């Protein structure tokens, strides 16, 4: 093994009610690609924030190149050669590429010189970029380039990447990996956070696994199977959702040639979308975030209205119906954003259950709310989906992301929908809860409902859906059966590398 660049010793950080990191120790070698594995909430993000100076550890120490290292702020970390590419991009939409990069540097040169350097570095690493384009107009892959180049301009010794591929197509991932391998060959260490195990197996030299804030093991990813790594992350044997053979029934819902203008300046317009889903079918819709997922859900749920004939339910035009009318007919939706869209954060679970359930569950009569029935419905959801909460009187905000997600999905599933539309049903949910949610969707389809599952998790879509289609810049590809669909084909359906130039390294 090469020399040690950064050594973490007993790092501990506690937040009220939860220990995010509990005596975590490991070493990162020079020129090593080190993976940090763990489920959501395992403490990966907190750990790298400590390395990057955003969070101060309660105890423990770090040693960088044989010298004690304890950055008080990101500025100090950057000065010591630590750079970070964030999970949710830390970019400013309204500013251009060069301005965004200047903001991440200590002493940026004048704009014109900076633009020149951006050009040369980006071409050197096979990540071409125009310094004067507004970041809001860039694709997800290009935005990530901005972040990476911002880091590379400071000649980092350690590059931290937090879930870099969650927004990329398989082809874009390959371009990124070529760049990372080139960096590694030049002696840069990379701390790579992800829960995509196959990627880690192909890229990383060494992996440290966190569970509930503790370092629970290490492995060499090349020599370890993805399943073994997953079980180390979860700490238990994984239960794969069971999928019974299903027969597709008649068409439940269809969209024909639907175009909808973008709802906002940085939104996506839907262009000529055609879609059919049968009873008993799960239609998986993939694609990189921001390619029209939210817009498609709004059209299906009735938040955005269109011409009557553009959305058909059992052959009847429902394009002009609002969400309540559609709910009455059996078209239910669970949007992606839990707090604020799928649930009202400060209202109790009972009130939240009432908000979408009142029509189908008969929770109100002549405008008066039947609170006892509403409470009963909320309790049914809590019991049926193993939502961990003291009771239905608790505010939605007080639940953890995974628990709230189970509640949001359960609330719709228990209303016995004819058509259920879900967006990112397992985003930010731990593996066990995710498996439970997927099983619920499969059971629902087995009972004859049509399910449209929009997700960015390709593995999830491959696991549960019968047919797969991809959204790319507001266009929906033709659906293909998931039987025998390869990753390469999926990538091409998602728009390939989005016309990004392939790295020449």
């Amino acid at each position: 093994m090469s020399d040690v660049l950064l050594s973490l010793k007993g790092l501990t950080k506690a937040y009220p009610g939860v220990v995010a990191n509990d005596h975590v120790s490991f070493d990162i070698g020079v020129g090593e690609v080190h993976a940090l594995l763990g489920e959501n909430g395992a403490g990966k993000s907190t750990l790298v924030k400590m390395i990057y100076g955003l969070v101060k550890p309660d105890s423990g120490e770090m040693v960088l190149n044989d010298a004690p290292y304890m950055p008080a702020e990101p500025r100090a970390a950057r000065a010591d050669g630590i750079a970070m590419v964030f999970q949710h991009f830390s970019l400013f939409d309204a500013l251009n590429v060069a301005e965004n990069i200047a903001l991440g540097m200590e002493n940026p040169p004048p704009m014109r010189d900076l633009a020149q350097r951006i050009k040369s570095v980006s071409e050197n690493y096979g990540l071409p970029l125009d310094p004067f384009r507004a970041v809001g107009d860039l694709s997800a892959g290009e935005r990530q380039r901005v972040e990476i180049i911002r880091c590379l301009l400071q000649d980092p010794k350690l590059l931290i990447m937090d879930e870099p591929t969650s927004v990329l197509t398989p082809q874009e991932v390959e371009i990124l990996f070529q760049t990372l391998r080139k960096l590694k060959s030049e002696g840069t260490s990379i701390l790579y956070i992800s829960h995509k195990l196959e990627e880690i197996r192909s890229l990383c030299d060494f992996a440290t696994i966190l569970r509930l804030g503790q370092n629970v093991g290490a492995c060499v990813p090349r020599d370890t199977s993805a399943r073994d790594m997953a079980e180390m992350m979860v700490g238990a044997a994984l239960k794969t959702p069971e999928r019974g053979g299903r027969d597709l029934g008649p068409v439940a819902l269809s969209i024909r040639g639907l175009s909808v203008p973008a709802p906002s300046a940085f939104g996506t317009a839907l262009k000529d979308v055609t879609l059919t889903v049968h009873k008993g079918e799960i239609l998986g819709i993939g694609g990189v975030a921001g390619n029209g997922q939210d817009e498609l859900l709004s059209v299906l749920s009735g938040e955005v209205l269109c011409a009557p004939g553009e959305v058909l339910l059992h052959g009847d035009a429902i394009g002009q119906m609002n969400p309540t009318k559609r709910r009455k007919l059996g078209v239910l939706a669970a949007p992606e954003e839990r707090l604020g869209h799928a649930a009202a954060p400060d209202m109790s679970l009972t009130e939240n259950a009432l908000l979408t359930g009142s029509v189908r569950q008969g929770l109100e009569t002549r405008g008066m709310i039947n609170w006892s029935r509403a409470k009963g419905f909320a309790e049914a959801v809590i019991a049926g989906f193993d939502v961990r909460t003291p009771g239905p009187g608790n505010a939605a905000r007080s639940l953890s992301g995974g628990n709230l997600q189970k509640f949001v999905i359960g609330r719709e599933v228990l209303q016995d929908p004819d058509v259920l539309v879900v967006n990112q049903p397992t985003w930010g949910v731990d593996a066990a809860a995710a498996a439970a949610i997927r099983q619920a969707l499969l059971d629902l389809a087995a009972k004859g409902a049509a399910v449209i599952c929009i997700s960015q998790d390709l593995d999830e879509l491959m696991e549960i859906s019968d047919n797969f289609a991809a959204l790319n810049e507001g266009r929906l590809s033709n659906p293909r059966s998931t039987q025998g669909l390869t990753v390469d084909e999926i990538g091409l359906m998602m728009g390939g590398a989005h016309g990004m130039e392939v790295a020449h390294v």
Partner: protein
Amino acid sequence: MDLSAINPVQLIAFLMVAATPVLLAAIGELVVEKSGVLNLGVEGMMITGAIAGFAATVETGSPTIGFIAAAVAGALLSCLFVVLTQFALANQVASGLALTLFGLGLSALLGQSYVGVKPPATAKIDIPVLTDLPVIGPILFNHDLMVYFGIALVAATWAVLKYSRAGLVLRAVGESHDAAHALGYKVVRIRILAILFGGACAGLGGAYISLIRVPQWTEGMTAGIGWIALALVVFASWKPWRALLGAYLFGGVTVVQLNLQAAGVAIPVEYLAMSPYLITIVVLVILSADKSSAPAALGRAFHASR
């Protein structure tokens, strides 16, 4: 009715005077909003600046000290807004409205003994030759220093926002405070400085009304100019030069309607009096087709949790 009594040269000269209070307040609020904070207390800070400047000038006899006192008073009042919104994380809209009500009440209290007092006059610049030029002289070279200060402030704000690093950081904070925080910028500190700057500018604008434009003290004399300044910022799409344009339009219509009143035009005075507000807003609404330039984090509270 005698329209010939209206002198176009004097009209333009007065226009610049009438526009200066709203211009000063607007440019201050523009900086505040660029940093992502919505301070609806402009009216309250203006009127506080108006009485503070008026009192200081009457007591010391120096308009310069008066303007400095006005800026300090405006900034001090905005400190209240800082405490409410940046530390207590109170709702910015409610806090701003409270600031306006508080400023109106406070100024009325402080100003009781100044009603009817005449302040010392503020000197106008007098450059030999230039000031005596026909037409151009009275329009460009015969004002008090604050008129030029206002224009210079617009130019400086524009240049700082566009070209300097400080301006870039300010805009970044207004675009996404989370991202700016992640990069290690002091979001709260930057916003506090912007709010204080906005308060000082509003105070100056208020003092300009009580010391030069009117010059006397009456309760509630800002008469909604703070609200016009707020509207100006939005409809100017957060662009300094467009705010200047809007301010001059407002000032122009104000002066014209005053002249029309004096000339005895047969339109009820109430209609004439409302016309500057109406026309400014209508024109700016038409101009502001691109609302995309609003700072993305405008009005959102920031707390560095986790």
